[in-house]
């Protein structure tokens, strides 16, 4: 046989295949100075309009494109609300009118001046647009019909007329959320289509006065921000911020170790452990606002028995999970207010105690039973469900685990059809009322009430005293008293509630050693880039 030719061709082909990559060796790289490169899962963004954005990654972007009347200091989140575009504010004697005075000399990215008119219009717009975050403002009695009167401006002052004398901290905390962002009215109206208040345009563009401008947003791929040179608090140190969508933790880790990115935000505990020996990178732990909880539907004949609710609190292996698959990412937290919030409590009275659970159940005559949990296809949730399943089996209870996609679980949950729910709740704004109103408030437990509160979704008829206490806490002007009210509510809540907070989120951001002043926004806010430097 003399078929030499094909053999030679084959070798040649494979030689080229091997040699091509060899010839362009790209050794350890470093991101350009003045550019901050972040790997993050950002495929949840559906809009960058502050009046619509309500996803974690979307808010991360909006926070840096826009300023708000009042805001948090990225270097001192604990200090709470500080003046921002408003340099000060006054509350009327009856507590129902708040007047904010605008700062002079601030300009939008378009060059237009930031006026009281823009600020008032932005709030009116959010209310009239009536997208997901509108309720944050509507809490103060604003409706699409009355908001033009209730939110007004006069010269350089913005005037808010509330329907109740709400606590000043409550109002300001809400104004500091993304929906309170001040938008460039002239620019946006120039892009309005029909009655959309420029929503279609603003969803993919920016019209803010914040420290960064939007350079590009390619969905599921990347968000690029450019520093705004004329920012009123000084141009940010990072001229460019690039957030890349990298789904896989291991890929984020590789990119970080190769020096192709500065920050990796979604590392699994395994990967965090894997890089701890690496001198070039560091890991920061930051407590975030999200709560991992378990909801027991009060429609279920077994789960609605008080003994069952109490026993379940002892069947959760808090420490065991915190030390194993939740390691470094979640810490035990048994209150509905996250640590870092006004009124947040760090009392964690329950422990994993099978004997105690068995005794409680035995006293109530419960020796067997079966319940179902519907779990999203997220590894942690499934692990929690399985741990719970094992613990329940020891006291004669069976937990059936059904796995579904996020959208399917949410559908069933909204229809009040999930017996045992395991999942996360993220606060909507920086005030304690955000969680109190969902965990401990349910004004109408009817099936057709169609509410979004977690208490309603779990069919829990919250006792009337607790409903009233939650409402009263929004009106308490004295902040110290207000804090005490929330502590009291949480104490009562722990005794009886069938929606059991278990863990609070810790965000582990891994970054190059030279990245300074990183913050993911703590428990009260979203990520902020303007103070970040690279040495």
């Amino acid at each position: 046989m003399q078929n030499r030719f094909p053999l030679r061709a084959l070798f040649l082909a494979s030689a080229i295949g091997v040699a091509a990559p060899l010839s362009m060796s790209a050794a350890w790289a470093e991101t350009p100075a003045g550019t901050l490169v972040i790997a993050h899962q950002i495929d949840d963004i559906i809009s960058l309009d502050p009046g619509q954005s309500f996803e974690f990654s979307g808010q991360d972007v909006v926070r840096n494109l826009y300023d708000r009347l009042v805001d948090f200091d990225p270097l001192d989140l604990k200090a709470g609300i500080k003046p921002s575009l408003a340099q000060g504010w006054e509350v009327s004697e009856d507590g129902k009118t708040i007047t904010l005075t605008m700062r002079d000399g601030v300009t939008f990215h378009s060059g237009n001046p930031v006026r009281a008119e823009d600020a008032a219009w932005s709030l009116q717009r959010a209310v009239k647009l009536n997208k997901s975050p509108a309720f944050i403002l509507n809490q103060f009695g604003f409706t699409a019909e009355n908001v033009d009167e209730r939110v007004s401006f006069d010269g350089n002052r913005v005037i808010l007329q509330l329907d109740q004398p709400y606590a000043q901290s409550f109002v300001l905390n809400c104004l500091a959320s993304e929906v309170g962002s001040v938008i460039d009215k002239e620019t946006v109206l120039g892009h309005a289509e029909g009655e959309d208040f420029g929503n279609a345009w603003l969803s993919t563009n920016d019209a803010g006065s914040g420290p960064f401008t939007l350079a590009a947003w390619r969905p599921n791929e990347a968000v690029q921000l450019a520093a705004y040179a004329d920012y009123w608090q000084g141009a940010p140190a990072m001229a460019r911020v690039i957030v890349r969508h990298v789904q896989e933790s291991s890929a984020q880790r590789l990119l970080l170790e190769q020096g192709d990115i500065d920050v990796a935000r979604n590392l699994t505990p395994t990967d965090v452990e894997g890089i701890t020996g690496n001198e070039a990178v560091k890991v920061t732990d930051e407590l975030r606002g999200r709560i991992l909880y378990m909801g027991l539907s009060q429609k279920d004949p077994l789960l609605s028995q008080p003994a069952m609710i109490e026993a379940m609190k002892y069947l959760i292996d808090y420490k065991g999970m915190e030390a194993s698959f939740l390691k470094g990412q979640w810490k035990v937290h048994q209150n509905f207010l996250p640590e870092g919030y006004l009124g947040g409590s760090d009392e964690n009275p329950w422990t994993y105690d099978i004997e105690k659970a068995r005794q409680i159940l035995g006293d109530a005559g419960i020796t067997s039973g079966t319940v179902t949990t519907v779990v999203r296809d997220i590894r942690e949730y499934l692990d929690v469900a399985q741990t719970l399943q094992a613990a329940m089996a020891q006291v004669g209870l069976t937990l059936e685990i059904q796995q579904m996609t996020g959208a399917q679980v949410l559908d069933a949950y909204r229809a009040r059809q999930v017996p045992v729910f395991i999942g996360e709740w993220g606060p909507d704004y920086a005030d304690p009322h955000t969680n109190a109103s969902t965990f401990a408030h349910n004004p109408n437990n009817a099936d057709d009430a169609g509410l979004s509160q977690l208490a309603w979704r779990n069919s829990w008829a919250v006792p009337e005293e607790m409903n009233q206490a939650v409402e009263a806490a929004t009106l308490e002007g004295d902040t110290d008293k207000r804090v005490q009210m929330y502590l009291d509510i949480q104490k009562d809540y722990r005794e009886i509630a069938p929606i059991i907070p278990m863990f609070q989120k810790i965000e582990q951001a891994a970054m190059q050693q030279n990245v300074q002043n990183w913050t993911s926004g703590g428990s009260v806010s979203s990520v902020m880039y303007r103070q970040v430097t690279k040495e």
Partner: protein
Amino acid sequence: MAQPDILGQPGQGGPVPAGHRPGAGGARLRRRLRSLGGILLSLALTLLGLLLVTFVIGRIMPIDPVLKVVGERATQAQYDAAYQVMGLDKPIWQQFLRYMAEVLRGDFGRSISTGHAVAQDLLRVFPATLELAMLGTLIGVCVGVPLGVIAAARRGGWLDQIARVVALVGYSMPIFWLGLMGLLLFYGILGWVGGPGRQGIIHDGMVPTVTGLILVDSLMAGDWAAFRDAFSHIVLPASLLGYFSLAYISRMTRSFMLEQLSAEYVVTARVKGLSERRVIWTHAFRNILVPLITVIALSFGSLLEGSVLTEIVFSWPGIGQYITKALLAGDMNAVLGGTVVIGTCFVALNLLSDILYRLLDPRAR
């Protein structure tokens, strides 16, 4: 040369079909037109059928697209308003007609999972997949075909054994794992290739978008550094996809060749004293070209659908990830738009292989 007849390539010397007779030009033109019309009709029917099926599946799927729009915290009133705006309160056939009317006007609607116009999204994600699929198929063909031919020619030899193992591994290895290992080795340890993503940070967004294929765009801009960078990023995922299509193509090539090599005309050719090289490449190989093209087109088509796992591992913003994500969100505008693109590709590939058949096989003319 009388060889073609003996060697099983009839047609060239045989009777000419009636339509091809000189003087029958009008009839031929009519036939051509009819076949063009037929092609267009089959394209339209295929796409219509695809859209209809996808639409119905999308609507009966237990995923609520409204929730994606209004968010988890929406009140019932906000939910109802969005439900109406999206036209979901109308019967399915009306929704479908409304959608088709918009598509015919060239409007694929807005994606609810990205907030962008679907057409704009597709223009971004499809070239990413196309670039990867073309390079992957190129690798698959350039390596897979010779490998398959040699394996058949030296059946049972060491090269055949190697080819068998290579193909078997290619079939059975999870692409997810292989991708991560590849990244770890070639990017993490050796530093030979670029990391996840289509481009390095420095080049990101620096080359003007013309075709959306970064390799082509950077060449058109004359930016060699950007080209090298893009190549270093695509080479690993393309090799991975190439490996998978290689496994399939080499196995199919081998079995086609074996069939031919046992045919009588090969025996005849050998008896006549033709060199083995000529027997294999000139006679036997030419006869497997037609089925081989089908195999290659199919394998290219499957790469065009987007390899979701490869795209996830390599943070490759392609159409596979796009459609999958949209489907999970109940974002039917995006799913349908993607379906149209992929459906059109398949029809086009079919058409292309039809044309190639006619060129290569006189019987099909």
